[in-house]
Structures are given as structure tokens and as C-alpha cells.
């Protein structure tokens, strides 16, 4: 039976920064903020599915911004999430060409979050392209790269779960996969540029 953990703002931020028990932290965000934030989307031309999609992206953005120390903590988590959710949705409306009068609202709303966050949100479409690119990698490549770069597993730990002769063979495979993905990403210079700006890498 799952024990439902409750967090204070600072405790939650610390857990996300340190990547501790992320599942519980994400579940907490859903339980406490999903309904409230989904209302905004549904009251502004969105439906339930839109609200769910936007909230998912809000959570991804929130976690990455916290881990990049881009959340300064001068607003509550609730306010910050609301700003991301709102901007992501207005951006999506704009993308769908339904902005119209909302265009003005969008431009105004953008001012409520800093430039870097806006850029992150604006990179949404690029990240959708990334999903397609990742699907072009084989399952084996995807699994190795995620295990090493996202789950932070050592080569030895990965070797235990995959069928490779030895550590060196696995290492070579990982390098090839990384290079392959790099080439897929940089094949479209515009995409690479947007992603760099959106994800603030290298900082």
C-alpha cells in the first residue's frame, strides 16, 4: 500500500533538486495541483485532454527548472506552477492559431515569468520533435542512453540488465548511440538552435 507523502514547499524543492524519491514528489504535485491548474485550461478553450497534456508538460518544465536552479523561490510553488501552466497553454493556443484576442493576453502573460522560463516553454514544439527523433533510435540505444544519462546508472549496473559481452562492448555501443542521436538532432540546425535556447544547456 502506497504511503502518501506530504511536502512543504522547501522540502519538495530539495527532493527535486537532489532527485530523491521523485515518484512521490510527482504524485504530490498531481494530487495537490492538477485539479486547480486544469480548470484554467478548461475555462480557456481547452478540454480535459488539453488540461492533462499541459499539466504533464508543466511538471516536466517545473522539475527541470528547479534542477537548473531557475526557480528562485520568490513565489510559492503553486504560483510558479500556475505561471508555467498558463504560459504553456497560451503558447499552445498561439501554435494552434486560435490566439486571436488571446494574443494580447499571451504577450502579457509572458511577462509574468522570466525570459529563460518563457524560452523553455516556447521550446515545447521542439521537444515534441525530439520525441519523434528518439523513436528513430533503436530500443537498445534508447535504453542504454536513458539508463546512463537519465537514471545515472553505472556501466556495470547497465551491463547487469542488458545482454552485452563486457563493459567495453557496452561502452562502445553507448558512444555510438550518443553520436547517432547527436547527428539526428543536428541534422536540423533550426531544431538544435531552439532546443539549446529552450533547455539552457551548457550553463
Amino acid at each position: 500500500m502506497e504511503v502518501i507523502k506530504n511536502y512543504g514547499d522547501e522540502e519538495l524543492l530539495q527532493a527535486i533538486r537532489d532527485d530523491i524519491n521523485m515518484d512521490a514528489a510527482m504524485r504530490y504535485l498531481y494530487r495537490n495541483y492538477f485539479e486547480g491548474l486544469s480548470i484554467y485550461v478548461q475555462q480557456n478553450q481547452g478540454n480535459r485532454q488539453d488540461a492533462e497534456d499541459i499539466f504533464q508538460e508543466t511538471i516536466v518544465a517545473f522539475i527541470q527548472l528547479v534542477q537548473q536552479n531557475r526557480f528562485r523561490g520568490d513565489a510559492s510553488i503553486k504560483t510558479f506552477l500556475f505561471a508555467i501552466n498558463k504560459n504553456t497553454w497560451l503558447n499552445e493556443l498561439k501554435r494552434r492559431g486560435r490566439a486571436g484576442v488571446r494574443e494580447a493576453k499571451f504577450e502579457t502573460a509572458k511577462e509574468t515569468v522570466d525570459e529563460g522560463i518563457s524560452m523553455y516553454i516556447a521550446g515545447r514544439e521542439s521537444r515534441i520533435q525530439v520525441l519523434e527523433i528518439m523513436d528513430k533510435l533503436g530500443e537498445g540505444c534508447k535504453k542504454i542512453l536513458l539508463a546512463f544519462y537519465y537514471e545515472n546508472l553505472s556501466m556495470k549496473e547497465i551491463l547487469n540488465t542488458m545482454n552485452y559481452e563486457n563493459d567495453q562492448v557496452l561502452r562502445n555501443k553507448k558512444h555510438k548511440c550518443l553520436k547517432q542521436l547527436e547527428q539526428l538532432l543536428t541534422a536540423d540546425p533550426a531544431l538544435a538552435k531552439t532546443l539549446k535556447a529552450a533547455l539552457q544547456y551548457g550553463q
Partner: protein
Amino acid sequence: MDNNNTNTERLIRYLDGELSEAESEALRTELANNTAMQQELDNLVLTKGVIRNYGLSQKVSGIHQAMMLEMTAPAKPVVRSLPKMMMRIAAAIIILAGLFGLYQYLAVSPGNLYNDQYTAYQVATMRGTTNAGNIEKAYSEKKDDQVILLYRQTANPTANEQFLAAQAYLNLSNLNNAIMLFNTLLEKNKATNTDTLNDDAEYYLALSYLKKNETTKALPLFKKIHDDKDHLYHDKISSWYLSKLKLLNWKN
């Protein structure tokens, strides 16, 4: 292995934090003078970031599915078996009945039951009375003390005068004298085989006993009135009232 591949290999090891400090320093120096190599490192850093972003998106997506199921799951209907439900209803009824009984038990008192029943006897309703004497006049004027005084001065009071005197005593809460006079009247009727004011006397005698909280004596009289459909006061004594009297008697 050509030079490009070697550089890529070194850059990936640098990205993964696998180079020694000296190797890293040498690479950084090289990067400062090699734009193409720096560009490749930037691309690898971007690629790593994209992988992390993808991993996180996949993770959130998994949590999202689970949370949507959890948050939209309908509340489990409470299924109760029929016997269990009947027992619950029965228990509820018993509890309510118990509470009602407790309330009645606490609320019942001689004063309450007396006030529920008592209405002052009206001379105008006196049946068969033609003698509008002084006692009756005083009683009509609600001068109970005067009624008693006149009664005491009367050498041979009639049944009517005796009854009115008993009523006056009852009004003045002189219950012993009221009871004595009502009883005397009833005994005389019995002895002479008459029924002058007999029903009235029985009813007010019962009330006198009740007011005095002698329920063991009041109860048989009220029961007799309740059981006798021809009794003048039969309609005034309901089964419910009799039950409350029994409760009071039990309480006493």
C-alpha cells in the same frame, strides 16, 4: 581509429566525467583553439540534455497515467448484504425507541400528567342539579374558601354540595380532604345504590390521587374509566395516557 573518432571519444569521456583532471585541462585548452571541436562538444551536451528531458517526460507520462486512474476512479460502492442492512435498520429503530423511551421516562411526572388532564369542574355542566344554593353560587364565583366554609356550616350536605366542596379542596391543593370527600360520595352512592355525580367523583378522585403522586391508587381508577365505554370521562383517558401513567407508577 582516425583523429575525428578519437576526438569524439575524448569528448564523450569528458562529458561523462571520465577524464582525469590533467586530461580535462588539456582538452579545455584544445577546445579554446578548435571551434569545430567545441561545436561538437556543444552538440553532445545538447544531446545529453535532450536524453535527460526525454527520460523525465517518459517518467512524468508514467506517473500521469497512474495518477489519472487514481484521481478519476469512482468511489467504490458500498455493498451491504440484506441481512446486515436489516440488522442495521433494526438496531437504529431499537436505539430510537430506546431514546424515545428514555425521554418519556425522564419527562413523565405527576404534575405533567395532572396538567394534561385537569380542567376545572363547571357548575353549569352539573347534571340533574336544580338547587342553586349558596355553595354552588360560591363555587361558580370561584370562591373556594367560601365553598368550604359554607360546606362546613351545612348540617346535612347534599351529594352536590359535598362534590363541590371536594372540588374546592382540590383547587386549593388540600388533597387529603378532597380525596376523603370524593371517596365519601362514592361510598354513599354505593350504599344507597345511586350514581349521583358518580363518574365525576371517580374522575376527580383519580386526579386527586395523581396530584398527590399516589399512582397505585390513581391507576386502577383511570383504568376503570378507560375500560368503561359508558363512563362519562371514557374519551378523556386514552391508551397512551394510561401507558404514561403506568410508566410513572413504575418510576415511582
